[in-house]
């Protein structure tokens, strides 16, 4: 037995050693947990709510929202003014606001951070939010074309669209190289035959202008001089030099084309828009427009003296270090892109300007924030320390909340939430309290079978089902849903009330339009189509589908039965499967139509959506900014998120007109008219319900959680509720 004891002792020792590595931390003043993992702390790269919630704690944008009614308040800007024509905005920065390394927050910080946002190299999901700034779109296109010309070979492209990009990029590249002065010697730019080059160029340009696939193909094949010159430029050393030369043009181009100016000794930021955008200030409160600290993001390696100067006067006061002296940047000789390492967004290196600073971040485990000592308003944040804990299992999260390990839990997904919401309803009924979260309400303790710590907050998002609006299905069959009357019929045959009470059981507010009702100040949501099986059958009959041989199924005039409807949903959560089953039953019952359910994993689902390989598919959209277009742009024919393939020139024109409209209230009325038309006639999708966020906290202990549909939580707004002493 003694031989066995030795490995056992070793095992125990190893165990003790491993336990000792992990030192426990004291509990933070506030512990919060949400369903979602934090993906990145780089605000320009963010697109998830969980990430943005942290951005609002760590960074401070020019403006912020008043989370009760979502009007705007000054934040990093002390004051701002909009010119009479609505095109020029001026922001005066707060004096004395500082980054967490002590350096001052200047207008250049914003100008530079927005350049990051507008740079294709950053691959920000929200670059196009800023495209209404004068020259911003041009800047993006210019850089993208520069990269296309550098990385895409026009002779290798198979698709017309890509060939157009490649040729355009090449032409731009050649003219830029031609005009370059000085041109780095390493770049292999040798013109042997200027006349042919010019002739080819004209040919390529006119082929591009004609938009003809064949002409472009022909022109490319004849462009021998261009081809030979591109091959010369392929020399590895030449490419390195050219990528560098291209990059050197970026910042001057940004300064000269984009309507963002720094004035008044770096204290004032002037933004010029290419058209009046009433909601533009709202975008400035949105996380991706937060400023980041350039020396940190780029990883400047500077000597202590320069560092001292940066801390005193800001980075714009010193000369930019060479690209080689910026550790987080690298130029790719393959694509020409600026590759940015995101490793600066970590506790030991992150420099931020918000009310909190990042103390610790352990991957998929926890994150700790504490009040930033350099922030200009020490009273703003309520809790000294906040821990954000990662609890992947929804049931465990609820148990941890019950036990008091968590003070605030968002995105409650455990099945028991339905019963808990019932207990909350009982509590509200018994005590006659409608909104227990509002301040100043005396909250009695929850009796048996009741609770007061779970809340369903309707949010800025809508669940819907998309119709495939393309004339043909992906496999070439004719698409019955190409006709608006058919879509209307299906929408009116959908009993949404039954879905939210019997299927999701969360009693979300049902929706007949896409923009969540009451979420945008000054916007009157129109009425959509209501549930009406009789009218639904009439609409289908109008489109030629009626039961002609009394077999309970619909046929067209030639007697061809309505094809079985393929309903595509994602299998990740039971919610959508249950909704799909309910829809199948409803449509079979009310319309006599066969429905085939196709459950797909998200990856396959996205693929099918992109290819238009569906008849009806589940969908969901969250709004980004406080304007109806954040939802309605989904119906633009060219929108990247128009999964439905819905295309109507009138709708596009109405969206364009709204974009140009200077009168804010007329604009909102026009948009309401557009939404009415979309959801009374066109019906590209069936809105089902507004989404709700289920969140758990005891309003008797925690205050400051907003219940506004915009669903933006400011961690610094949270306060403990001080019990009145008896």
């Amino acid at each position, binding site marked *: *037995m003694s*031989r*066995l004891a030795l490995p056992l002792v070793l*095992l125990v020792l*190893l*165990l003790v050693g*491993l*336990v000792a*590595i*992990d030192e*426990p*931390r004291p509990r933070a003043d506030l512990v919060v947990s949400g369903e979602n993992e934090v*993906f*990145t*702390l*780089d605000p320009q*790269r963010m*697109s*998830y709510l969980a990430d943005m919630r942290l951005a609002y704690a760590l960074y401070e944008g020019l403006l912020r929202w008043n989370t009760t009614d979502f009007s705007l308040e000054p934040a990093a800007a002390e004051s701002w003014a909009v010119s009479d024509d609505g095109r020029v905005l001026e922001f005066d920065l707060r004096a004395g606001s500082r980054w967490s390394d002590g350096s001052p927050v200047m207008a250049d910080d914003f100008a530079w951070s927005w350049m990051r946002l507008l740079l*294709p190299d950053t*691959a*920000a*999901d*929200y670059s*196009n939010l800023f495209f209404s700034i004068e020259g911003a779109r041009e800047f993006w296109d210019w850089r*993208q074309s520069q990269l296309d010309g550098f*990385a895409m070979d026009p002779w290798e492209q198979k698709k017309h669209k890509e060939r157009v990009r490649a040729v355009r990029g090449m032409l731009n590249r050649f003219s830029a190289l031609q005009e370059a002065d000085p041109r780095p010697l390493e770049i292999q730019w040798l013109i042997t035959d200027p006349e042919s080059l010019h002739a080819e160029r004209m040919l390529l340009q006119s082929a591009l202008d004609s938009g003809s696939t064949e002409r472009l193909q022909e022109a490319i094949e004849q462009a021998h001089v261009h081809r030979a010159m591109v091959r010369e430029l392929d020399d590895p050393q030449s490419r390195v030099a050219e990528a560098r030369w291209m990059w050197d043009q970026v910042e001057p181009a940004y300064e000269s084309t984009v309507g963002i100016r720094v004035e008044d000794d770096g204290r004032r930021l002037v933004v010029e828009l290419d058209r009046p955008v009433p909601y533009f200030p709202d975008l400035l409160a949105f996380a991706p427009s937060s400023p980041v600290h350039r020396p940190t993001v780029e990883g400047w390696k500077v000597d202590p003296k320069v560092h001292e100067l940066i801390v005193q006067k800001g980075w714009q006061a010193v000369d930019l270090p060479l690209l080689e002296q910026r550790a987080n940047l690298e130029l*790719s000789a*393959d*694509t020409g*892109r600026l590759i940015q390492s*995101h*490793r600066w*967004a*970590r506790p030991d290196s992150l420099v931020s300007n918000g009310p909190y600073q990042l103390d610790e971040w*352990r*991957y*998929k*485990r*926890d994150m700790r924030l504490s009040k930033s000592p350099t922030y200009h308003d020490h009273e703003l944040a309520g809790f000294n320390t906040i821990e954000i*804990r*990662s*609890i*992947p*299992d929804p049931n*465990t999260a609820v*148990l*941890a909340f*019950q*036990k008091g*390990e968590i003070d605030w839990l968002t995105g409650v997904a455990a099945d028991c939430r339905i019963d808990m919401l019932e207990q909350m309803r009982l509590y509200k009924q018994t005590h006659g309290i409608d909104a227990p979260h509002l301040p100043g309400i005396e909250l009695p303790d929850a009796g048996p079978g009741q609770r007061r710590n779970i809340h369903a907050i309707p949010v800025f998002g809508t669940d819907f089902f998309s119709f495939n609006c393309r004339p043909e299905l992906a496999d070439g069959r004719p698409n019955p849903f190409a006709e608006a009357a058919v879509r209307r019929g299906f929408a009116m045959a959908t009993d949404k009330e039954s879905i939210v009470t019997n299927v999701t059981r969360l009693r979300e507010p049902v929706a007949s339009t896409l923009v969540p009702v009451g979420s945008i100040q000054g916007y009157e949501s129109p009425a959509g189509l209501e549930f009406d099986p009789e009218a639904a059958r009439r609409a289908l009959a109008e489109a030629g589908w009626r039961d002609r041989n009394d077999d309970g199924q619909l046929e067209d005039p030639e007697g061809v039965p309505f094809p079985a409807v393929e309903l595509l949903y994602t299998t990740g959560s039971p919610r959508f499967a249950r909704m799909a089953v309910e829809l199948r039953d409803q449509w079979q019952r009310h319309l006599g139509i066969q429905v085939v359910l196709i459950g797909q994993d*998200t*990856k*396959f689902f*996205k*693929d099918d959506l992109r290819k238009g390989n569906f008849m009806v598919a589940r969908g*969901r959209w*969250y709004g980004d900014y406080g304007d109806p277009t954040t939802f309605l742009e989904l119906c633009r024919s060219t929108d*990247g*998120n128009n999964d439905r393939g819905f295309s109507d020139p009138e709708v596009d024109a109405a969206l364009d007109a709204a974009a140009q409209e200077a009168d804010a209230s007329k604009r909102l009325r026009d948009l309401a008219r557009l939404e009415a038309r979309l959801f009374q006639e066109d019906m590209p999708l069936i809105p089902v319900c507004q989404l709700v966020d289920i969140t758990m906290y005891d309003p008797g202990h925690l205050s400051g959680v907003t219940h506004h549909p915009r669903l933006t939580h400011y961690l610094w707004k949270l306060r403990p509720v001080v019990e009145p002493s008896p």
Partner: protein
Amino acid sequence: MTRLLLKRLVQLPIILLAVYTLTFMLTWLIPGSPLEKSEARQPPPEVVAAMESQYRLDDPWYFYWDYLGNATGVSWILGERNGPIVDLGPSLRHENWNVNEILAAQLPVSMTLGLLAMLMACIIGIITGTMAAAKPGSWLDLLSLLIALIGISLPAFVTGTALLLVGGLWLDWFPVSGWGRPTHMILPALALSLPFAAYIGRLIRAGMLEQMASDHVRTLRALGLPERTILLRHCLRNAFLPVLSYLGPATAAAMTGSFVVERVFAVPGVGNHFIEAVLGKDITLIMGVVLVYSALLVIFNLLVDLLYGWLDPRIRLA
């Protein structure tokens, strides 16, 4: 012994290469792109294409060799890059982190949990197995059978949740979530140990019964040794040998994390990457986790073989 060791050490890279290649092919078959976000806005297609080429996702062949070179340290030895010798790449989904850091932070957690679970499994298994074998057919035997049945047949998300409810909420002895203190570890380790304990208990019982019917035990009895001494000193020792060969792969499996247990108890270990990285098609993370897991598995099997020979002189593995 040395020959066995050498043979295994030669085998190790071959096995790892095979695992790497197979995993690589499978991951490449998953549709979609790690740069794509579900339920969120998409960057323009030209940007996605450029990002894919930045991470070499458009060129599987290059990716395969490049990653292999970085992960094995070959490219470091050849002086092609700086940084850590073994570089498992950046996480494609969590851009602020790289796979080395993720594994360095989370593997110790999983290993602690796994080792503790194996320790518990041995203790529970030996106790229940010995109890059962001492009086076959008695209520003690039935009880141990019941424990084994629960351990083997109930999935961890049931036993785990039950343990959470009882130990965490009703009795209020242990915290429900988190990691760092010894009290955090008891419940998840117990949940993780149950199936292993059940198996070990059954192995011990069978081995003990066989031993007790053997000639040398009859001789011991005839010599008048107390029953307890016979059981604990003579039978258990021999009955433990089959358990030992089971312990190798079992420890490796327990130490590299259990998706369900880690999820239920919010333990920040590597187990959940097996599912989440695959769902998110985070290729570098998948490859990193699989490589580390396979290496651990092979090494543990080797360790057990060595231990086996050392414990039982009859089996000198040539």
